[in-house]
Protein backbone atom coordinates (compact mmCIF):
# COMPACT_ATOMS: atom_id res chain seq x y z
CA UNK A 1 0.00 0.00 0.00
CA UNK A 2 1.40 3.40 -0.96
CA UNK A 3 1.73 6.09 1.70
CA UNK A 4 -1.27 8.40 1.80
CA UNK A 5 -3.57 5.81 0.29
CA UNK A 6 -6.67 5.04 2.36
CA UNK A 7 -6.45 1.88 4.45
CA UNK A 8 -10.24 1.81 4.51
CA UNK A 9 -12.46 2.89 1.69
CA UNK A 10 -16.26 3.00 1.84
CA UNK A 11 -18.05 3.70 -1.43
CA UNK A 12 -21.70 4.61 -1.89
CA UNK A 13 -23.07 2.29 0.79
CA UNK A 14 -26.80 1.84 0.95
CA UNK A 15 -28.52 -0.29 3.59
CA UNK A 16 -32.26 -0.57 4.10
CA UNK A 17 -34.40 -2.50 6.56
CA UNK A 18 -38.05 -3.39 6.73
CA UNK A 19 -39.65 -2.88 10.12
CA UNK A 20 -41.95 -5.50 11.64
CA UNK A 21 -44.95 -3.41 10.57
CA UNK A 22 -43.70 -3.49 6.95
CA UNK A 23 -42.39 0.08 6.84
CA UNK A 24 -39.13 0.36 4.90
CA UNK A 25 -36.28 2.23 6.63
CA UNK A 26 -33.18 3.52 4.89
CA UNK A 27 -30.38 3.18 7.48
CA UNK A 28 -27.54 4.30 5.20
CA UNK A 29 -27.99 6.17 1.97
CA UNK A 30 -24.98 6.62 -0.30
CA UNK A 31 -22.31 6.83 2.40
CA UNK A 32 -18.74 7.18 1.17
CA UNK A 33 -15.57 7.86 3.12
CA UNK A 34 -11.85 7.19 3.08
CA UNK A 35 -9.79 6.59 6.21
CA UNK A 36 -6.01 6.88 6.20
CA UNK A 37 -3.73 4.65 8.20
CA UNK A 38 -3.31 5.76 11.82
CA UNK A 39 -6.40 7.98 11.92
CA UNK A 40 -8.75 7.92 14.92
CA UNK A 41 -12.10 8.57 13.30
CA UNK A 42 -15.12 9.12 15.51
CA UNK A 43 -18.49 8.42 13.92
CA UNK A 44 -20.87 10.68 15.78
CA UNK A 45 -24.63 10.76 15.62
CA UNK A 46 -27.91 10.31 17.39
CA UNK A 47 -29.33 6.88 18.10
CA UNK A 48 -30.96 5.26 15.09
CA UNK A 49 -29.24 7.45 12.49
CA UNK A 50 -27.03 4.73 11.00
CA UNK A 51 -23.71 4.81 12.91
CA UNK A 52 -23.81 1.21 14.09
CA UNK A 53 -25.09 0.04 10.70
CA UNK A 54 -22.08 1.69 9.06
CA UNK A 55 -19.72 0.04 11.52
CA UNK A 56 -21.35 -3.37 11.00
CA UNK A 57 -20.99 -3.02 7.23
CA UNK A 58 -17.29 -2.16 7.62
CA UNK A 59 -16.88 -5.08 10.06
CA UNK A 60 -18.43 -7.41 7.49
CA UNK A 61 -21.23 -8.37 9.87
CA UNK A 62 -23.88 -6.80 7.66
CA UNK A 63 -24.21 -6.81 3.88
CA UNK A 64 -24.95 -3.56 2.09
CA UNK A 65 -27.55 -3.56 -0.66
CA UNK A 66 -25.35 -1.28 -2.71
CA UNK A 67 -21.78 -0.04 -2.60
CA UNK A 68 -18.48 -1.49 -1.52
CA UNK A 69 -16.10 -1.51 1.41
CA UNK A 70 -12.39 -2.10 0.82
CA UNK A 71 -9.69 -2.66 3.40
CA UNK A 72 -6.16 -2.30 2.03
CA UNK A 73 -7.65 -2.52 -1.48
CA UNK A 74 -9.37 -5.83 -0.79
CA UNK A 75 -13.17 -5.95 -0.81
CA UNK A 76 -14.81 -6.82 2.52
CA UNK A 77 -16.93 -9.95 2.19
CA UNK A 78 -17.30 -10.82 5.87
CA UNK A 79 -15.66 -10.44 9.27
CA UNK A 80 -11.89 -10.77 9.23
CA UNK A 81 -8.80 -10.54 11.38
CA UNK A 82 -7.82 -7.28 9.65
CA UNK A 83 -10.67 -5.55 11.54
CA UNK A 84 -10.91 -6.00 15.28
CA UNK A 85 -14.27 -5.10 16.81
CA UNK A 86 -15.26 -3.93 20.28
CA UNK A 87 -19.01 -4.17 20.67
CA UNK A 88 -21.40 -2.02 22.62
CA UNK A 89 -22.55 -5.15 24.45
CA UNK A 90 -20.19 -6.93 26.83
CA UNK A 91 -18.76 -9.65 24.57
CA UNK A 92 -15.99 -10.97 26.83
CA UNK A 93 -16.48 -14.74 27.00
CA UNK A 94 -17.64 -15.60 30.54
CA UNK A 95 -16.36 -19.19 30.28
CA UNK A 96 -12.76 -18.15 29.66
CA UNK A 97 -10.39 -16.65 32.18
CA UNK A 98 -9.20 -13.12 31.45
CA UNK A 99 -5.88 -14.35 30.03
CA UNK A 100 -7.60 -16.85 27.72
CA UNK A 101 -10.01 -14.18 26.53
CA UNK A 102 -7.13 -11.95 25.52
CA UNK A 103 -5.33 -14.87 23.86
CA UNK A 104 -8.46 -16.11 22.04
CA UNK A 105 -7.79 -14.50 18.67
CA UNK A 106 -4.26 -15.84 18.65
CA UNK A 107 -5.52 -19.28 19.60
CA UNK A 108 -7.93 -19.53 16.68
CA UNK A 109 -5.08 -18.42 14.43
CA UNK A 110 -3.00 -21.34 15.77
CA UNK A 111 -0.30 -19.21 17.41
CA UNK A 112 1.73 -21.42 19.77
CA UNK A 113 0.50 -21.51 23.35
CA UNK A 114 3.70 -20.02 24.75
CA UNK A 115 3.68 -17.16 22.26
CA UNK A 116 0.01 -16.33 22.63
CA UNK A 117 0.21 -16.28 26.42
CA UNK A 118 3.24 -14.00 26.22
CA UNK A 119 1.38 -11.59 23.94
CA UNK A 120 -1.76 -11.78 26.10
CA UNK A 121 0.20 -10.99 29.27
CA UNK A 122 1.92 -8.11 27.49
CA UNK A 123 -1.43 -6.58 26.54
CA UNK A 124 -2.93 -7.19 29.96
CA UNK A 125 0.00 -5.26 31.38
CA UNK A 126 -0.75 -2.43 28.98
CA UNK A 127 -4.35 -2.15 30.14
CA UNK A 128 -3.32 -2.60 33.79
CA UNK A 129 -5.02 -5.96 34.29
CA UNK A 130 -2.13 -8.40 34.63
CA UNK A 131 -2.91 -9.00 38.34
CA UNK A 132 -6.33 -10.37 37.34
CA UNK A 133 -5.14 -12.52 34.45
CA UNK A 134 -6.44 -15.71 36.11
CA UNK A 135 -9.81 -14.23 37.13
CA UNK A 136 -13.17 -15.06 35.57
CA UNK A 137 -14.97 -12.19 33.82
CA UNK A 138 -17.85 -12.36 36.33
CA UNK A 139 -15.36 -11.31 39.00
CA UNK A 140 -14.53 -8.08 37.16
CA UNK A 141 -16.27 -4.72 37.03
CA UNK A 142 -17.74 -3.37 33.77
CA UNK A 143 -14.74 -1.09 33.29
CA UNK A 144 -12.30 -3.93 33.74
CA UNK A 145 -14.21 -6.09 31.25
CA UNK A 146 -14.07 -3.22 28.76
CA UNK A 147 -10.30 -3.18 29.20
CA UNK A 148 -10.18 -6.95 28.67
CA UNK A 149 -12.02 -6.45 25.37
CA UNK A 150 -9.55 -3.74 24.33
CA UNK A 151 -6.58 -5.94 25.26
CA UNK A 152 -8.07 -8.91 23.36
CA UNK A 153 -8.59 -6.89 20.19
CA UNK A 154 -5.14 -5.27 20.30
CA UNK A 155 -3.47 -8.62 21.06
CA UNK A 156 -4.86 -9.94 17.78
CA UNK A 157 -3.01 -7.06 16.10
CA UNK A 158 -5.55 -5.98 13.45
CA UNK A 159 -4.57 -2.92 11.41
CA UNK A 160 -8.07 -1.50 11.91
CA UNK A 161 -10.03 -1.30 15.13
CA UNK A 162 -13.79 -0.79 15.04
CA UNK A 163 -15.54 0.23 18.25
CA UNK A 164 -19.30 0.54 18.61
CA UNK A 165 -20.10 2.76 21.61
CA UNK A 166 -17.93 0.46 23.72
CA UNK A 167 -18.03 2.57 26.87
CA UNK A 168 -21.68 3.59 26.76
CA UNK A 169 -22.63 1.50 29.79
CA UNK A 170 -19.80 2.75 32.01
CA UNK A 171 -19.99 5.48 34.64
CA UNK A 172 -18.33 8.80 33.84
CA UNK A 173 -15.08 8.28 35.77
CA UNK A 174 -14.58 4.71 34.54
CA UNK A 175 -15.39 5.80 31.00
CA UNK A 176 -12.70 8.47 31.15
CA UNK A 177 -10.17 5.93 32.48
CA UNK A 178 -10.95 3.40 29.76
CA UNK A 179 -10.88 6.12 27.10
CA UNK A 180 -7.36 6.96 28.28
CA UNK A 181 -6.34 3.30 28.01
CA UNK A 182 -7.65 3.11 24.44
CA UNK A 183 -6.04 6.40 23.47
CA UNK A 184 -2.65 5.29 24.87
CA UNK A 185 -2.81 1.99 23.00
CA UNK A 186 -3.78 3.75 19.78
CA UNK A 187 -0.84 6.15 20.12
CA UNK A 188 1.61 3.33 20.84
CA UNK A 189 0.47 1.05 18.05
CA UNK A 190 -0.58 3.59 15.41
CA UNK A 191 -3.60 1.55 14.46
CA UNK A 192 -6.52 2.96 12.52
CA UNK A 193 -9.60 3.38 14.68
CA UNK A 194 -13.24 3.82 13.70
CA UNK A 195 -15.06 4.71 16.90
CA UNK A 196 -18.84 5.05 17.02
CA UNK A 197 -20.26 7.28 19.73
CA UNK A 198 -23.23 9.52 20.42
CA UNK A 199 -21.20 11.56 22.91
CA UNK A 200 -19.76 14.76 21.39
CA UNK A 201 -17.28 15.19 24.25
CA UNK A 202 -16.00 11.64 23.82
CA UNK A 203 -15.52 12.19 20.09
CA UNK A 204 -13.67 15.46 20.68
CA UNK A 205 -11.49 13.94 23.40
CA UNK A 206 -10.42 10.92 21.34
CA UNK A 207 -10.68 11.58 17.62
CA UNK A 208 -8.33 13.03 15.06
CA UNK A 209 -11.34 13.31 12.81
CA UNK A 210 -15.05 13.35 13.37
CA UNK A 211 -17.81 12.28 11.01
CA UNK A 212 -21.41 13.13 11.85
CA UNK A 213 -23.95 10.66 10.52
CA UNK A 214 -27.49 11.97 10.34
CA UNK A 215 -30.48 10.22 8.77
CA UNK A 216 -28.21 7.68 7.10
CA UNK A 217 -25.98 10.28 5.42
CA UNK A 218 -22.71 11.97 6.29
CA UNK A 219 -23.64 15.42 7.51
CA UNK A 220 -20.15 16.57 8.49
CA UNK A 221 -16.61 15.26 8.08
CA UNK A 222 -13.94 17.27 9.76
CA UNK A 223 -10.45 16.94 11.24
CA UNK A 224 -10.13 17.77 14.93
CA UNK A 225 -7.13 20.03 15.06
CA UNK A 226 -6.60 20.06 18.77
CA UNK A 227 -3.39 18.85 20.51
CA UNK A 228 -3.04 15.19 21.43
CA UNK A 229 -3.38 13.88 24.10
CA UNK A 230 -6.22 16.20 24.94
CA UNK A 231 -7.42 17.53 28.22
CA UNK A 232 -10.78 19.10 29.05
CA UNK A 233 -9.09 22.48 28.77
CA UNK A 234 -8.05 21.78 25.17
CA UNK A 235 -11.62 20.96 24.25
CA UNK A 236 -12.83 24.10 26.06
CA UNK A 237 -10.75 26.46 23.86
CA UNK A 238 -12.63 28.77 21.44
CA UNK A 239 -11.68 26.47 18.54
CA UNK A 240 -12.86 23.42 20.46
CA UNK A 241 -16.14 25.05 21.48
CA UNK A 242 -16.80 26.22 17.93
CA UNK A 243 -16.33 22.68 16.65
CA UNK A 244 -18.57 21.33 19.39
CA UNK A 245 -21.34 23.77 18.43
CA UNK A 246 -20.99 22.76 14.80
CA UNK A 247 -21.22 19.07 15.62
CA UNK A 248 -24.21 19.59 17.88
CA UNK A 249 -25.87 21.62 15.14
CA UNK A 250 -25.44 18.72 12.71
CA UNK A 251 -26.85 16.38 15.32
CA UNK A 252 -29.93 18.58 15.45
CA UNK A 253 -29.44 20.17 18.86
CA UNK A 254 -28.65 23.80 18.11
Amino acid sequence: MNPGEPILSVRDIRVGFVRADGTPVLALDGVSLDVSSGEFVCILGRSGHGKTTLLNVVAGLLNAQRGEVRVMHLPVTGPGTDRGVIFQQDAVFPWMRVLDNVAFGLRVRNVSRQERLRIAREHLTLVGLLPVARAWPRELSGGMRARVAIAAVFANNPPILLADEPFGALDYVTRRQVQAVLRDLWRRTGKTVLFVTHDVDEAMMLGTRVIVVSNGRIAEDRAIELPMPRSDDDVATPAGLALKHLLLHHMGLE
Partner: protein
Amino acid sequence: MTFRSTGGPPDPELPRFRMRAGNGPPKGLGMQQKLVDALYTVAGIALFFAVWWIAASQLPRSRLVTPLEAGRDLWTNFFYSPRLGVFGLGKVGYGSLLLYTLSNVFIGLVTGGAIGILIGIASARLKLLRIFVDPVVLVLGTVPILVAAPLFLLWFGVVPFTQVLLVALYSAVMMVLFSQRAAQNVNPVYERWAMTFGAGTGARMRHILIPGTVPEIIGGLRITLASAWGLEVFAEILGAPSGIGQAIKALTNLSNVPGLLACVVIVAVTAIVTDILLVVLMRRVAIWA
Protein backbone atom coordinates in the same frame (compact mmCIF):
# COMPACT_ATOMS: atom_id res chain seq x y z
CA MET B 1 6.90 -4.15 18.75
CA THR B 2 7.90 -3.59 22.38
CA PHE B 3 5.40 -2.53 24.95
CA ARG B 4 5.83 -1.02 28.35
CA SER B 5 3.29 -0.73 31.11
CA THR B 6 1.28 2.50 31.01
CA GLY B 7 2.19 2.98 34.66
CA GLY B 8 0.22 5.81 36.22
CA PRO B 9 -1.65 5.85 39.52
CA PRO B 10 -2.81 2.61 41.10
CA ASP B 11 -5.99 1.28 39.58
CA PRO B 12 -8.94 2.14 41.83
CA GLU B 13 -10.77 -0.94 40.58
CA LEU B 14 -8.11 -3.47 41.54
CA PRO B 15 -8.58 -3.47 45.34
CA ARG B 16 -12.27 -4.23 44.81
CA PHE B 17 -11.26 -7.13 42.62
CA ARG B 18 -8.88 -8.50 45.19
CA MET B 19 -11.72 -8.61 47.69
CA ARG B 20 -13.86 -10.60 45.30
CA ALA B 21 -11.26 -12.58 43.42
CA GLY B 22 -10.96 -15.35 45.97
CA ASN B 23 -13.89 -17.09 44.28
CA GLY B 24 -16.52 -15.93 46.70
CA PRO B 25 -16.67 -14.59 50.22
CA PRO B 26 -13.79 -14.98 52.69
CA LYS B 27 -13.09 -18.60 53.67
CA GLY B 28 -14.53 -18.45 57.21
CA LEU B 29 -17.81 -16.95 56.02
CA GLY B 30 -18.08 -19.51 53.21
CA MET B 31 -17.65 -22.43 55.63
CA GLN B 32 -20.21 -20.91 57.99
CA GLN B 33 -22.73 -20.61 55.14
CA LYS B 34 -22.06 -24.20 54.07
CA LEU B 35 -22.65 -25.36 57.65
CA VAL B 36 -25.96 -23.47 57.81
CA ASP B 37 -27.02 -24.96 54.47
CA ALA B 38 -26.10 -28.47 55.68
CA LEU B 39 -28.13 -27.92 58.87
CA TYR B 40 -31.17 -26.92 56.81
CA THR B 41 -30.78 -30.06 54.69
CA VAL B 42 -30.50 -32.29 57.77
CA ALA B 43 -33.52 -30.52 59.30
CA GLY B 44 -35.54 -31.16 56.12
CA ILE B 45 -34.67 -34.87 56.15
CA ALA B 46 -35.41 -35.12 59.88
CA LEU B 47 -38.81 -33.46 59.35
CA PHE B 48 -39.63 -35.93 56.57
CA PHE B 49 -38.83 -38.92 58.78
CA ALA B 50 -40.69 -37.39 61.74
CA VAL B 51 -43.85 -37.00 59.64
CA TRP B 52 -43.41 -40.54 58.35
CA TRP B 53 -42.97 -41.84 61.90
CA ILE B 54 -46.05 -40.03 63.21
CA ALA B 55 -48.15 -41.21 60.25
CA ALA B 56 -46.94 -44.81 60.76
CA SER B 57 -47.88 -44.68 64.44
CA GLN B 58 -51.43 -43.59 63.53
CA LEU B 59 -52.04 -46.14 60.75
CA PRO B 60 -52.31 -49.94 60.92
CA ARG B 61 -49.09 -51.85 60.13
CA SER B 62 -50.68 -53.26 56.98
CA ARG B 63 -50.79 -49.72 55.55
CA LEU B 64 -47.62 -48.06 56.78
CA VAL B 65 -44.60 -49.08 58.86
CA THR B 66 -42.07 -46.87 60.63
CA PRO B 67 -38.81 -45.83 58.91
CA LEU B 68 -37.00 -48.11 61.35
CA GLU B 69 -38.94 -51.16 60.16
CA ALA B 70 -38.37 -50.20 56.52
CA GLY B 71 -34.67 -49.78 57.27
CA ARG B 72 -34.56 -53.18 58.96
CA ASP B 73 -36.19 -54.77 55.89
CA LEU B 74 -33.69 -53.03 53.63
CA TRP B 75 -30.75 -54.29 55.68
CA THR B 76 -32.07 -57.87 55.82
CA ASN B 77 -32.87 -58.14 52.11
CA PHE B 78 -30.17 -55.97 50.55
CA PHE B 79 -27.85 -58.78 49.48
CA TYR B 80 -30.29 -61.69 49.34
CA SER B 81 -34.07 -61.81 49.60
CA PRO B 82 -35.56 -65.36 49.48
CA ARG B 83 -39.09 -64.02 48.93
CA LEU B 84 -38.09 -62.45 45.61
CA GLY B 85 -36.94 -65.83 44.31
CA VAL B 86 -40.55 -67.00 44.41
CA PHE B 87 -41.30 -64.51 41.63
CA GLY B 88 -38.62 -65.90 39.36
CA LEU B 89 -36.04 -63.22 40.06
CA GLY B 90 -33.44 -65.79 41.15
CA LYS B 91 -31.04 -65.46 44.08
CA VAL B 92 -31.11 -61.69 44.31
CA GLY B 93 -31.36 -58.92 46.86
CA TYR B 94 -32.43 -55.29 46.61
CA GLY B 95 -28.81 -54.33 45.95
CA SER B 96 -28.33 -56.40 42.78
CA LEU B 97 -31.76 -55.38 41.47
CA LEU B 98 -30.89 -51.74 42.09
CA LEU B 99 -27.66 -52.22 40.17
CA TYR B 100 -29.66 -53.47 37.17
CA THR B 101 -31.93 -50.42 37.37
CA LEU B 102 -28.99 -48.07 37.84
CA SER B 103 -27.10 -49.44 34.84
CA ASN B 104 -30.20 -49.17 32.61
CA VAL B 105 -30.77 -45.57 33.73
CA PHE B 106 -27.12 -44.77 33.10
CA ILE B 107 -26.93 -46.35 29.63
CA GLY B 108 -30.30 -44.91 28.60
CA LEU B 109 -29.48 -41.44 29.85
CA VAL B 110 -26.00 -41.35 28.30
CA THR B 111 -27.05 -42.60 24.86
CA GLY B 112 -30.37 -40.75 24.71
CA GLY B 113 -28.86 -37.64 26.27
CA ALA B 114 -25.95 -37.57 23.83
CA ILE B 115 -28.24 -37.98 20.82
CA GLY B 116 -30.65 -35.37 22.20
CA ILE B 117 -27.87 -32.84 22.87
CA LEU B 118 -26.42 -33.24 19.37
CA ILE B 119 -29.80 -32.92 17.66
CA GLY B 120 -30.81 -30.05 19.96
CA ILE B 121 -27.70 -27.96 19.29
CA ALA B 122 -27.70 -28.72 15.57
CA SER B 123 -31.40 -27.93 15.22
CA ALA B 124 -30.90 -24.62 17.02
CA ARG B 125 -28.50 -23.62 14.26
CA LEU B 126 -30.01 -25.32 11.20
CA LYS B 127 -33.51 -24.08 10.47
CA LEU B 128 -34.27 -26.93 8.10
CA LEU B 129 -33.38 -29.52 10.73
CA ARG B 130 -35.44 -27.63 13.32
CA ILE B 131 -38.49 -27.62 11.04
CA PHE B 132 -38.13 -31.39 10.75
CA VAL B 133 -37.19 -32.17 14.36
CA ASP B 134 -39.63 -29.98 16.31
CA PRO B 135 -42.87 -31.75 15.32
CA VAL B 136 -41.25 -35.19 15.75
CA VAL B 137 -40.06 -34.30 19.25
CA LEU B 138 -43.44 -32.80 20.09
CA VAL B 139 -45.27 -35.98 19.02
CA LEU B 140 -42.81 -38.32 20.82
CA GLY B 141 -42.97 -36.19 23.95
CA THR B 142 -46.75 -36.50 24.14
CA VAL B 143 -46.80 -40.31 23.90
CA PRO B 144 -47.54 -41.49 27.45
CA ILE B 145 -45.21 -44.07 28.97
CA LEU B 146 -48.30 -46.23 29.59
CA VAL B 147 -48.66 -46.53 25.81
CA ALA B 148 -44.98 -46.64 24.84
CA ALA B 149 -43.84 -49.23 27.41
CA PRO B 150 -46.28 -52.04 26.43
CA LEU B 151 -45.57 -51.39 22.76
CA PHE B 152 -41.82 -51.67 23.35
CA LEU B 153 -42.39 -54.89 25.31
CA LEU B 154 -44.34 -56.30 22.36
CA TRP B 155 -41.72 -55.24 19.85
CA PHE B 156 -38.52 -56.10 21.69
CA GLY B 157 -39.59 -58.57 24.39
CA VAL B 158 -38.81 -58.78 28.12
CA VAL B 159 -35.12 -57.91 27.77
CA PRO B 160 -32.96 -55.14 29.28
CA PHE B 161 -32.79 -53.44 25.86
CA THR B 162 -36.50 -52.58 26.08
CA GLN B 163 -36.08 -50.50 29.24
CA VAL B 164 -32.85 -48.91 28.04
CA LEU B 165 -34.51 -47.90 24.78
CA LEU B 166 -37.48 -46.44 26.61
CA VAL B 167 -35.25 -44.36 28.90
CA ALA B 168 -33.03 -43.35 25.97
CA LEU B 169 -35.99 -42.26 23.87
CA TYR B 170 -37.58 -40.08 26.53
CA SER B 171 -34.16 -38.72 27.60
CA ALA B 172 -33.37 -37.81 23.98
CA VAL B 173 -36.69 -36.03 23.58
CA MET B 174 -36.16 -33.99 26.74
CA MET B 175 -32.53 -33.19 25.94
CA VAL B 176 -33.39 -32.04 22.40
CA LEU B 177 -35.64 -29.42 23.93
CA PHE B 178 -33.18 -28.39 26.67
CA SER B 179 -30.19 -28.25 24.30
CA GLN B 180 -32.07 -26.41 21.59
CA ARG B 181 -33.11 -23.76 24.08
CA ALA B 182 -29.58 -23.63 25.56
CA ALA B 183 -28.04 -23.03 22.12
CA GLN B 184 -30.63 -20.40 21.29
CA ASN B 185 -29.93 -18.66 24.60
CA VAL B 186 -26.20 -18.19 23.91
CA ASN B 187 -25.84 -14.46 23.34
CA PRO B 188 -25.14 -13.94 19.59
CA VAL B 189 -22.61 -11.23 20.46
CA TYR B 190 -20.15 -13.95 21.55
CA GLU B 191 -20.25 -15.61 18.13
CA ARG B 192 -20.02 -12.28 16.36
CA TRP B 193 -16.99 -11.36 18.45
CA ALA B 194 -15.39 -14.75 17.77
CA MET B 195 -15.96 -14.24 14.03
CA THR B 196 -14.06 -10.95 14.14
CA PHE B 197 -11.10 -12.87 15.60
CA GLY B 198 -11.16 -15.18 12.62
CA ALA B 199 -12.97 -18.10 14.26
CA GLY B 200 -14.56 -20.40 11.70
CA THR B 201 -17.59 -22.65 12.22
CA GLY B 202 -15.59 -25.40 13.98
CA ALA B 203 -13.80 -22.99 16.31
CA ARG B 204 -17.06 -21.24 17.17
CA MET B 205 -18.65 -24.60 17.93
CA ARG B 206 -15.71 -25.61 20.17
CA HIS B 207 -15.04 -22.34 21.93
CA ILE B 208 -18.43 -20.62 22.00
CA LEU B 209 -21.42 -22.89 21.48
CA ILE B 210 -20.32 -25.88 23.57
CA PRO B 211 -19.02 -24.02 26.65
CA GLY B 212 -21.84 -21.49 26.38
CA THR B 213 -24.52 -24.18 26.54
CA VAL B 214 -22.95 -26.41 29.20
CA PRO B 215 -24.64 -24.96 32.33
CA GLU B 216 -28.13 -25.09 30.82
CA ILE B 217 -27.54 -28.57 29.36
CA ILE B 218 -26.36 -29.97 32.70
CA GLY B 219 -29.41 -28.36 34.33
CA GLY B 220 -31.55 -30.18 31.75
CA LEU B 221 -29.67 -33.42 32.40
CA ARG B 222 -30.57 -33.21 36.08
CA ILE B 223 -34.28 -32.97 35.25
CA THR B 224 -33.95 -35.73 32.65
CA LEU B 225 -32.12 -37.96 35.16
CA ALA B 226 -34.92 -37.54 37.69
CA SER B 227 -37.47 -38.51 35.02
CA ALA B 228 -35.29 -41.42 33.85
CA TRP B 229 -35.50 -43.05 37.28
CA GLY B 230 -39.28 -42.92 37.23
CA LEU B 231 -39.44 -44.21 33.66
CA GLU B 232 -37.08 -47.09 34.29
CA VAL B 233 -38.83 -48.30 37.45
CA PHE B 234 -42.22 -48.03 35.75
CA ALA B 235 -40.96 -49.91 32.68
CA GLU B 236 -39.57 -52.63 34.96
CA ILE B 237 -42.88 -52.97 36.77
CA LEU B 238 -44.63 -53.51 33.42
CA GLY B 239 -42.17 -56.18 32.36
CA ALA B 240 -38.44 -56.76 32.82
CA PRO B 241 -36.08 -59.65 33.57
CA SER B 242 -34.77 -57.89 36.67
CA GLY B 243 -34.65 -54.50 38.38
CA ILE B 244 -35.99 -52.79 41.44
CA GLY B 245 -39.30 -52.30 39.60
CA GLN B 246 -39.71 -56.08 39.52
CA ALA B 247 -39.03 -56.19 43.27
CA ILE B 248 -41.73 -53.54 43.81
CA LYS B 249 -44.14 -55.59 41.69
CA ALA B 250 -43.36 -58.78 43.67
CA LEU B 251 -43.64 -57.05 47.05
CA THR B 252 -46.96 -55.46 46.02
CA ASN B 253 -48.29 -58.94 45.27
CA LEU B 254 -47.13 -60.02 48.73
CA SER B 255 -48.64 -56.86 50.30
CA ASN B 256 -45.23 -56.43 51.94
CA VAL B 257 -45.32 -52.80 53.10
CA PRO B 258 -41.86 -52.70 54.76
CA GLY B 259 -40.26 -54.15 51.60
CA LEU B 260 -42.09 -51.69 49.33
CA LEU B 261 -40.98 -48.75 51.44
CA ALA B 262 -37.42 -50.10 51.54
CA CYS B 263 -37.38 -50.23 47.72
CA VAL B 264 -38.74 -46.69 47.45
CA VAL B 265 -36.09 -45.47 49.88
CA ILE B 266 -33.14 -47.04 48.05
CA VAL B 267 -34.35 -45.76 44.68
CA ALA B 268 -34.81 -42.27 46.15
CA VAL B 269 -31.40 -42.31 47.85
CA THR B 270 -29.65 -43.52 44.68
CA ALA B 271 -31.45 -40.88 42.59
CA ILE B 272 -30.35 -38.18 45.06
CA VAL B 273 -26.74 -39.44 45.04
CA THR B 274 -26.60 -39.47 41.21
CA ASP B 275 -28.09 -35.97 41.16
CA ILE B 276 -25.43 -34.78 43.62
CA LEU B 277 -22.76 -36.29 41.34
CA LEU B 278 -24.23 -34.31 38.43
CA VAL B 279 -24.16 -31.12 40.50
CA VAL B 280 -20.50 -31.77 41.36
CA LEU B 281 -19.80 -32.32 37.65
CA MET B 282 -21.61 -29.08 36.80
CA ARG B 283 -19.51 -27.14 39.33
CA ARG B 284 -16.34 -28.55 37.83
CA VAL B 285 -17.27 -28.12 34.18
CA ALA B 286 -19.05 -24.76 34.45
CA ILE B 287 -16.90 -23.26 37.18
CA TRP B 288 -17.25 -19.86 35.50
CA ALA B 289 -21.06 -19.73 35.73
